[in-house]
């Protein structure tokens, strides 16, 4: 996939179509991250739409730190999720317009079962992370649930990379054996840097 720099420049010039392309390019990554964080389908969809509305609102001052817009988008998602109630109230009318468009059918039994099962796994899988202190939770969630590198996570959260590492280390220590898969895989991710 080509980088997002050119797309971003067009968005900064208020090109709504370019904004739509950015949405299409990153929607699944943003919504997946919001799903992991909230374990709630509606909350994740509203948070995802809010992220993109905030991008549009801040288009003139936001800048990309890498060629990908993913760190910026997930950094905004992190802030939106932190202040979800306030952020979404700001856009309640716009969210209503987007929310009611193109809802996937939910009356198919197989699909309903798949959704229920996925939500259950989300809730169970993320419970240990959601209990962590906020600063550690935010770092660990991006490590575990996004494809960002440590450098990109640092950019997303506006932190030095050393702080990302230290918070991750503390989070892993807290999790201990509660989430062995995650502690193992984050260790592996760190080792590959």
């Amino acid at each position: 996939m080509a980088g997002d720099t050119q797309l971003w420049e067009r968005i900064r010039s208020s090109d709504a179509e370019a904004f739509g392309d950015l949405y299409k390019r990153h929607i699944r990554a943003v919504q997946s991250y919001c799903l992991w964080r909230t374990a709630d389908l509606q909350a994740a969809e509203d948070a995802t739409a809010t992220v993109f509305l905030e991008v549009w609102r801040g288009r003139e001052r936001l800048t990309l730190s890498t060629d990908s817009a993913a760190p910026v988008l997930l950094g905004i998602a992190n802030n939106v999720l932190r202040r979800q109630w306030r952020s979404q109230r700001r856009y309640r009318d716009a969210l209503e317009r987007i929310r009611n468009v193109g809802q996937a059918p939910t009356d198919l039994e197989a699909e309903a079962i798949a959704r229920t099962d996925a939500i259950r796994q989300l809730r169970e899988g993320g419970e240990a992370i959601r209990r962590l202190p906020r600063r550690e939770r935010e770092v660990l969630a991006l490590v575990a649930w996004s494809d960002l590198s440590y450098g990109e996570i640092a950019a997303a959260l506006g932190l030095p990379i050393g702080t990302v590492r230290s918070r991750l280390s503390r989070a892993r220590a807290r999790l201990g054996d509660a989430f062995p898969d995650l502690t193992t895989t984050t260790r592996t991710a760190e080792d590959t840097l």
Partner: protein
Amino acid sequence: VNTTKPDLSSLLPDDATLNARRAALVDTVGSGASSPQPTPPFRRCGPRLALGGGIALAALAATLIVSAGGNNPPKAFAVEPQDGGGSLIKVYSPEDASGLEAALAEFGIRSQVTWLPRETTCREPRFTPSSVRSPRGGTMGGAGGLAGPATAFSFSVMSGQQWRERRQELANGEISKEEYFSSIPGTIALDPAAFRPDQSLVIWGSRGPFRGDPEGGAELRFGIAEGPVASCEPVSVAGGGVLGAMNRAVEDESAQHTAEATASGVLSLGGAAAAAAESGPVGGQISPAGLIHTVYRRPSKAGPGAISPPGREQGIDASPRGRLV
């Protein structure tokens, strides 16, 4: 990392949905319909406030300042993480009700905040009084009030465990009394874990005169509600309420003068200690300027007053935290 991820494909939009939402989003931003919405008028009596820093990707400062609009925006409140855990929400001005609600919501405390024009309050009753355990011991409930300098109110969000640890350290001589009080700040302490799902914090109040400054003081009322809270219907307060009574007492330079307030109980804000509430209307005790006074009223139903301390906490209230000027 992938080994820990379930398949989310059933929860993500399919291509048709994605394209439809993309079109709706483009249409929304292109038409200007994504402009931020004003908050409901009955919940917001002050100017619209903007979150300083917004969602910029820079690291958030340790202190999150929320400011009012205007060329020289005053601070409405600040959220300060505390070294020993928890946070302190300092209210600098009775403005930005929705912002304060959001700040409390971030800690898991549901609230309804209403800032009113001066010398007005909300018609009561508008909620069913309830009570919660205070993280500094005792319980808080019913309806209470604070009056004093407008910049002196604060809410401490902390756990009961945090307070017990500091108490133990004080008892062991590991920390001084001053260190103890500075470690559990706040004119009101709140433990989010103490709230049941149907309980919420209700705050309302207004600015008023203090020490000769027509806008220098504020009166703040608070209560714990059980169930729904009706919107505030502003009504005038005869004589300026508790703040007015306090001002008159200060002018008289009489620490014993209680003005119109029917003294049913007193809290000087020095820690968990509080006098047990008696039945009766809103009350208060007036003493020389520089102190914030808490008044309380029993809930109409049987239950504790605004703050009821555990017995062992009696007598701690001579703390320097009561002197906030």
